[in-house]
């Protein structure tokens, strides 16, 4: 019994970070109707930024978070103007292909520089022990920081003028434009914010698990499952969806071989798409 509880708690902690990764994807999706396939590469960029910050520059791991957020934001802006801006309003396949190409370029560059070997950022942080089980400090702190970031994002979207502008554009771009919202600027901002969230979630994953240049794919796939659970374009739903996914992983593994978790996850993905096409947690949009 204790084992099951331990697995559930651990699933919740890691699931929160999946949620953070998915918040980035869903923000972009919701606001500009673009499926951002560079997401996995941006997560990996966050991981390697952490690696460079800690090993080459000697920065303590968690102090790397703010600069990684800023770098992710700026990189997202650049990416928006290079690969996304001209695809807005075109058939969805166009932006899909465009972001997929950028993804390939980024992963190719990463492979050329680092190869596909495994990198480990050793973080020493005491964990919390309960019965014979230990919850690693890195997992607890990552979940805590995720909650903090999600809270800040919520405040930003609901309490600030520009946040409200983002929501307005997501709701109805034409109407937003009619009332004088500079929609292009808002779109680039949302894309940059989504990229920054991807980078930071990559960084947090990097403190928990070793990673390679190719690690992004797995987390990108999870982000899609989470987005389907949480509702397209719904950041709060994404966080809940992430936690739900973690919970399912934690709940399933004590009872069955781990190979089955993927089957369950993607079975759920399909079921959610069919039964709740707007997401299980999409009680209301925004």
């Amino acid at each position, binding site marked *: 019994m204790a084992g099951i509880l331990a*697995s559930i708690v*651990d699933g919740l902690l890691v699931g929160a970070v999946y949620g953070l990764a998915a918040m980035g994807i869903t923000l972009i999706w919701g606001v500009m109707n673009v499926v951002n396939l560079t997401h996995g590469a941006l997560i990996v960029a966050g991981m390697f930024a952490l690696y460079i910050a800690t090993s080459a520059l000697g920065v303590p791991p968690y102090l790397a978070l703010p600069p990684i957020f800023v770098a992710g934001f700026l990189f997202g802006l650049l990416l928006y103007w290079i690969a996304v801006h001209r695809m807005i309003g075109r058939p969805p396949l166009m932006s899909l292909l465009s972001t997929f190409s950028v993804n390939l370029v980024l992963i190719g560059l990463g492979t050329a520089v680092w190869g596909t070997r495994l990198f480990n950022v050793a973080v020493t942080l005491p964990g919390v022990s309960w019965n014979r*089980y230990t919850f690693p400090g890195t997992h607890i702190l990552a979940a805590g920081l995720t909650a903090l970031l999600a809270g800040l994002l919520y405040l930003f979207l609901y309490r600030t003028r520009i946040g409200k502008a983002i929501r307005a554009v997501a709701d109805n771009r034409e109407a937003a434009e009619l009332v004088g919202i500079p929609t292009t600027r808002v779109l680039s901002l949302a894309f940059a914010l989504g990229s920054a969230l991807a980078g930071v979630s990559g960084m947090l994953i990097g403190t928990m698990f070793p990673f390679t240049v190719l690690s992004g794919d797995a987390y990108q796939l999870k982000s899609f499952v989470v987005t389907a659970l949480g509702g397209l374009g719904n950041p709060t739903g994404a966080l809940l969806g992430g936690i739900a996914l973690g919970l399912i992983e*934690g709940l399933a593994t004590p009872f069955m071989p781990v*190979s089955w978790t993927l089957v369950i996850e993607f079975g759920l993905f399909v079921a959610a798409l069919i039964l709740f096409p707007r997401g299980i947690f999409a009680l209301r949009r925004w």
Partner: protein
Amino acid sequence: MLRGKLAAAAVALGVLAAAPALAADDEITIGMTLSQTGPLNVDSVAQMRGAEMWRDEVNAAGGIKAGDKRYKVRFVSYDDQSQGGRVQQLYTRLIVQDKAQFLFSPYSSGLTGTAAVISEQYGKIMVITGGAEPKTYELGNKDLFQVITSADHYLSGAVDALHAKNPKAAVAFVYSDDPFSKAVVSAAREQAAEAGLKIVLDEAYPPNTTDFSAIVNKIIGAQADALLGGGHYPDGATLARQLYDQKANLKWATILVAPGNEEFATLGPAALGISVPSQWESQAVYKPDFGPTGAEFAKAFKAKFNLEADYHSASGYTGGAILQHAIEQAGSIEPEKVAAALNGTDVTTFFGRVKFATEAKRHGLQLAHEMVLAQWQNKDGKLAREIVWPKSAQTAELLYPLH
């Protein structure tokens, strides 16, 4: 004037172009793929470095002597991206288009099994340095030669050592769902049961698993004393890190492949005490019939690549050395004669003894080579691998329990 220069350039180009053609008769082409990218990349590149070192040494010494001819060695290699589909295409290309006369195996049992289908189809000799799964040799293949110990012996040393320390140890088998790891564990399960160890958990995980939290909780829940398992580098290293982070409190952990690589030390304290079945360690002292001693190999490898030699690089080198020996014995590069010489091979190199099974039902399987068990220990404040089993080869006392 200009015309004269052009003519001179054309002549020079002609000479350059003709030069390889002149040497072609005195060259043998060996084809292989390596996983420059993908999850098998760390061990595959190590294996390739060993093979390249052998090639460079042979060529510097004037080539392989067969009868009264000398052959320089040329490699043709491609990146298989750790994917079976690529291996299938590329080995066909190596044979048909690049006219490879001999083949080296890719890295890993899965990829080697795929390559073997192609090499056998074309009747090419393939020296196998990275495919331990024994099944490949039980399919009636004729031209495969496995230089390394096969998978069913990987964990026998660990089981013996564990039994010596704790005859009633509770064992968790946690292993990657791939052909190699499953073959290793299926033999080890029997060995553990025979030794009277108690198996409390038996769990296969997908090879691309990146989060072992739930599995580690299962190990803790099963109250295991020892963990035997793993798979290849990325999963094995991640598992080791999470065992440490989640304080699994194991008394013993043997993980396949990953801890055999120098990069494992980047895990820091999570690496301490983890043991690995190793095909070769630089401290091993075999008296070679030919070629370098272990110390000489390790030194030359370090000088060439500025890296420590591990068992994958040693097996890569040995694959070449064994093929060279067979060609020299045969006095010819004709495949039938070289295959016959390989069938008769029974030699000791710095890597240990090598002898192939010749009966049809398991032709090419390695019979004589033995593995050791190496453990990451603190040596003068630094992490280093020491041979801890068998006792006859020990360079340090076994660290037990780990914590």
